[in-house]
């Protein structure tokens, strides 16, 4: 299956998904699902993809742009291989999230929304990851790391660098 997927270009995969949306009632209401799919395939949304969606689904680009910029989840610039979300919710903040954040900032030399030069990490802020008992926490891709200290953070980052 993965071999086959590679053969299909990104555009074709998206087209296939859009075709499946068209059989649903009010296909234009599937826009968010389509944008999710496009981001899953491409890593982020660009003009070319959004133009394709506009033409295929008959949705004005201004509207697609409105939706894509409204939700933080949608990325409009290329993302790093791994995304780091630093929780700045109340519990984490009280337990030292700022220190954790500053460590990551100086270690990776990036700010929120930016990607490291090597393309490995993108830094984001989060408002609560639902793991307050482990505060302070960060999430890298789908994995939560808790009870962090500056030292521990650097060790974790290093495991991704290998």
């Amino acid at each position, binding site marked *: 299956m993965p071999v086959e997927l590679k053969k299909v270009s990104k555009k074709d995969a998206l087209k296939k998904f859009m075709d499946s949306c068209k059989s649903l009632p009010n296909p234009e209401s599937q826009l968010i699902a389509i944008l999710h799919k496009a981001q899953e395939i491409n890593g982020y949304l660009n003009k070319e993809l*959004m133009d394709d969606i506009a033409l295929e689904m*008959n949705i004005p680009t201004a*509207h697609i742009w409105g939706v894509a910029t409204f939700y933080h989840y949608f990325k409009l610039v290329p993302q790093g291989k791994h995304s780091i979300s630093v929780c700045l919710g109340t519990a984490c903040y009280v337990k030292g999230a700022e220190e954790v954040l500053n460590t990551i900032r100086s270690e990776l030399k990036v700010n929120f929304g930016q990607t490291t030069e090597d393309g490995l990490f993108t830094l984001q802020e989060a408002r609560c990851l639902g793991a307050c008992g482990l505060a302070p926490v960060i999430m890298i891709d789908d994995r939560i790391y808790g009870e962090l200290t500056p030292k521990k953070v650097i060790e974790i980052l290093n495991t991704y660098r290998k």
Partner: protein
Amino acid sequence: MITIYINDKPYKVEEGQTIMQAADKVGFRIPRLCYHPKLSIEGACRVCIVEVEGAKNYVASCAFPVSEGMKIKTNSEELRRARRDIVELILDNHPQDCHTCERDGICELQRLAFSMGIRKRHFEGERKHYEKDLSSTSVVRDPNKCILCGRCVRICSEIQKANVLGHAHRGFKTVVMPAYNMPFSESVCTTCGQCINVCPTAAFVEKNYTQELFQKLNDKSIVKIAQIAPSVRAAIGEAFGLEAGKAMEHEIVAALKRLGFDYVFDTQFSADLTIMEEGSEFLERLQGKGKLPMITSCSSAWMKCLEQFHPDLIENVSTAKSPMSMMSAMIKTYFAQKIKRDPKDILSVAIMCCTAKKYEASRPELMVEGLPATDMVITTREIAWMIKSSGIDLLDIKGENFDEPLGLSSGAGTIFGTTGGVMEAAIRTAYELYTGETLLDIEIADIRGFKGVKEGKVIMDGKEIRVAVAHGLGNANEVLEIARKDPSRYHFIEIMGCPGGCIGGGGQPYAGYNSIPLDEECLKKRAEALYGLDRNKTIRRSHENPDIQRIYKEFLGRPLSPAAHKLLHTHYKAKEPRGIIPVVNAVL
């Protein structure tokens, strides 16, 4: 009928309306901002809040339906304060530069703030700072002045169906912009300027050329020539405080002469010329030379819309230039020869009801003798300001006549300014050219009025000619969809980019106190002004205009002659980016 109580007094009102609509009818004009009767309800501004007994919060009266026994307060002390705070908070994120703003004195937000009794600013917070978008030939977008009422977004998507604008980002960072934050000039904007008409502030204004024109008018070395579109005379009075519907033909000529123009010509003359060319082209197509239905090409916003949204119909569109461009072409050739001046020394200024004409003037294929045919396009609003700014009293001026030889027009040329007018004018001439007989009933009621898509027919020599008229680009889409599905349904289609035709153009005076932009009553009065001028003319058919006959005799030969083709016709081609017109989903 149900009974509602407004401020403790009972009123009988119809069911199924909103509180605002019901209150309007019994004499309470609840303050409002984002609401527009022609557009969908957005409920964004919260200015129209009222107190409803039993409701937990204040409700937005534009969106809340009335019900039996409803007790409404529109003016309680607490409510007034809440409403004032809402407007004050809007003002807080708005530049405090009213006295240097283009809309000073004609700004809805300013009026609203005044009527709320805001005499002191209580809040001082962060304010947005964005770049102006000056890229378009026609429309300037200034996000700093935008209060996010969304009227522009709605008129662009609901009435014009061009979908250029949308709300992007969210919360404090929300900005109304074209897709991808691209410059207007690169977007699918048709430059119709309806966003300017409905904007309550100066977030959208036309690209202003008044200072440049003032400068040029002082230049003694050039010949300054103006032309005036029919719709300008039907609306300019409003900018001077007159009721809509007062035609000011000769007064404008006099005012323009005082401003420094050497000659003032009438775009209605070239409208007659357009009819000669377009009418002849239609008769040729009717005889099998070219595609039917033929579609008119006078509206510049429609031209851009055609190239971006309907490139498959380019061959159906008449090759005749718009009256403005025909006039400019004649000024720089025919008239330049007459006054023995180099066309380079002529400044050709078009005074139009339209922002899209600014774009049209920039189209390279309309150049004549290697020069832009129209050097500058000035809207009704701009010229009204120039007249006022120069201390010319338009209301108390002795009228003057248009100059020869491009100033005499028929009634057919006059009605070009209103929806259905071009078609009516074309029928008046085409009928007689085709049948050789005189058309007796020249006022064609079926294609007058403000219905979105109008249909009519005439019998020419036993042949039924079916015509359609659409105004506003949304209605245009509709009629084109019908024509695509059934190509033999119509022979001739008139399309005007703006609601009401040119009289509702994007460059017309702003709505006055207590009236709404694009009010249909106002459009009706402007149309009536033009129909009145037509009725009072002895010459009401383009081909009977003696100056039209003369220009063909002296210069152009005959309609569709090689000379006419070179100077009076143009071509269109598909443009990128291609716009998308969303299809309304069929009920499944």
